[in-house]
């Protein structure tokens, strides 16, 4: 008998995966809710334990079913995956308690237990993508999380949620199929599916056409999943029409895990030489990142619905993450990984707060939030605070990542990029101002004044994430420390 501690990497995925069918069997919303929350908290505890062990002792390798890698499926926890695991598990642990009251408003009661099932499957999928060291396993877990996400999006009250879910399904499946084609080509050339093993064997076939084709397929496929501009078309509607809890969870985790997959393939599998020397990937990524930062942020300014506004803002913020990646330097990657986390909690907090707004005022259109500053002072303050983090104001989490991004740009001597980063932040000021103007400088409409208060089970998780946004702006030891270790680990594999 080995101790439980040795099996933590497997348990990380198995706990939410097994809890999912359990919620179906229980059927009662209360019992399903209890199981879901317990599973998500257990997942968080495991993620934190794994993070601690990786921080202390380096990369963990777990052979699934005791089949040694590269023959069996390997679960591999290094600094980067441990960090992303904590982000996913922590967001899930915060959003699930919130979802109970939230879905009572938005989802028919007889579907509540299925909501928890789908939510747990989504968590299991995202955690699985992050922890696995096997290329095909990534695809399977990606589809587990994606399929459950389509269902969750379709649970939205508005009939447009159905269309949004359908479009997400089409785009997501094209993306996933592109990823499998890329993995297939890599398998043909190297004869292995273990990521680290491919990374070692790819040297012999580097630059051959199938490998370059694999790189192209993987880049496009993963870019679809991470909503890199101009492949972001599915994202705004999916976020806008999904139930509030789902939008918050997706905004905080789904695209971030896709970024993780991109980093993993670029740095651990292909290695620097093939990605960045043979193809102008650096320039392409830089250009797409800048386009996303400016175009998506500009579109966000003209939105009349806050959920859509912040969804477009997400596409813009993904631009910063990809921008950091394109620098191909230690500080650039650190900026990317820190922003992944900081933007995750910031956007999660905003969508949770918007869920409360929708509950009280009946919607998240700019017309609904008129005078919100007086009616819901704390919620408005929270949204402004997180908005400032999107802008990158000192004292918020967003500032930390932008600071590293600017440092990375200066390191490369590209001062014009510094100018563009600051200029795109001004666009964030502009879309945040749309909310501030409506919430603080307009009188509330007579028709939208609800007398309800946001229940504490929703206010508490939202407040927690909002406070975290400020906390990680002041104390950066966890975020920057982990990200720097992860960046160093990724770049070390190249040398």
């Amino acid at each position, binding site marked *: 008998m080995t101790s439980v501690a040795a099996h933590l990497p497997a348990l990380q995925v198995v706990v939410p995966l097994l809890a999912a069918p359990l919620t179906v069997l229980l059927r009662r919303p209360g019992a399903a809710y209890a199981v879901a929350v317990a599973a998500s908290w257990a997942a968080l505890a495991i993620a934190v334990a794994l993070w601690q062990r990786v921080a202390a002792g380096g990369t963990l390798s777990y052979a699934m079913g005791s089949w040694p890698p590269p023959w069996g499926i390997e679960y591999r926890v290094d600094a980067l995956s441990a960090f992303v695991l904590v982000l996913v598990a922590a967001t899930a642990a915060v959003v699930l308690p919130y979802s109970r009251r939230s879905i009572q408003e938005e989802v028919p009661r007889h579907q509540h237990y299925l909501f928890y099932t789908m939510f747990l499957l989504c968590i299991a999928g995202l955690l699985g993508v992050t922890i696995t060291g096997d290329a*095909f396993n990534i*695809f*399977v877990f990606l*589809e587990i999380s994606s*399929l459950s996400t*389509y*269902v969750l999006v*379709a649970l939205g009250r508005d*009939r*447009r949620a*159905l*269309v949004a*879910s*359908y*479009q997400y*399904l*089409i785009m997501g*499946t*094209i993306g*996933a*199929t592109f990823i*499998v*084609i890329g993995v*297939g*080509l890599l*398998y*043909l*050339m190297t004869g292995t*599916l273990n990521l680290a093993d491919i990374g070692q064997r790819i040297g012999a*076939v580097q630059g*051959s056409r199938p490998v370059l084709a694999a790189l192209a397929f993987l880049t496009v496929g993963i870019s679809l999943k991470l909503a890199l501009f101009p492949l972001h*078309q*599915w994202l*705004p*509607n999916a976020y806008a029409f999904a139930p509030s809890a789902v939008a918050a969870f997706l905004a905080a985790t789904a695209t971030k895990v896709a970024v993780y997959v991109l980093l993993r393939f670029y740095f651990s599998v292909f290695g620097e030489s093939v990605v960045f020397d043979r193809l102008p990937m650096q320039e392409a990524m830089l250009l797409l990142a800048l386009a996303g930062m400016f175009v998506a942020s500009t*579109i966000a300014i*003209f*939105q*009349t*619905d806050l959920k*859509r506004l912040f969804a*477009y803002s997400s596409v813009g913020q993904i631009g910063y993450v990809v921008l950091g990646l394109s620098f191909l330097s230690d500080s650039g990657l650190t900026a990317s990984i820190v922003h992944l986390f900081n933007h995750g909690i910031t956007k999660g907090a905003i969508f949770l707060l918007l869920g409360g707004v929708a509950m009280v005022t009946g919607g998240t*259109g700019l*017309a609904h939030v008129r005078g919100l500053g007086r009616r819901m002072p704390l919620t408005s303050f929270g949204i402004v605070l997180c908005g400032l983090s999107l802008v990158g104001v000192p004292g918020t989490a967003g500032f930390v990542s932008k600071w590293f991004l600017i440092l990375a740009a200066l390191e490369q001597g590209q001062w014009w990029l510094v100018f563009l980063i600051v200029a795109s932040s001004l666009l964030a000021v502009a879309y945040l101002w749309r909310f501030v103007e409506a919430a603080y400088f307009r009188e509330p409409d007579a028709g939208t004044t609800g007398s309800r208060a946001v229940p504490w089970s929703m206010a508490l998780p939202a407040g927690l994430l909002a406070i975290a946004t400020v906390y990680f702006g002041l104390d950066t030891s966890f975020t920057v420390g982990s990200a720097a270790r992860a960046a160093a680990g990724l770049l070390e594999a190249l040398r």
Partner: protein
Amino acid sequence: MTGAESAMTWGNHFSYFVTVFMMVAGLFILIARGNLIKKLVGLGIFQTSMYLLYIAPGKLVGGTAPILSDRFTVYSNPLPHVLILTAIVVGVATLALGLALVVRIRAAYGSIEEDEVLDMDAPASPQGEQGPRQ
């Protein structure tokens, strides 16, 4: 690898041509058709091309299943088959979910033509859509 490439003939590449044709045909249907069911058909064809991409190179002419016996020396690679078995399951689940969504869309809108469905929502949003229409 590069040396062998020139030696290969069109016939050797047969499976790849079929794969690429199906891939492009599937994607074309996805883009060109507005009918939500036809789009799913395109998606299915696109995914099937990926199955073929895995399966075809795993087969050796004259190869058997990997059985430990003195009588067999040439084996086909079983791993791609196993992988694609998984991928087929994923594909079936995706298709089932997609069709279920189309049923719900038909119930909510009374149409399964994408442009009609999108038009129906355009006046529903009071201030109009200012972002690009998806």
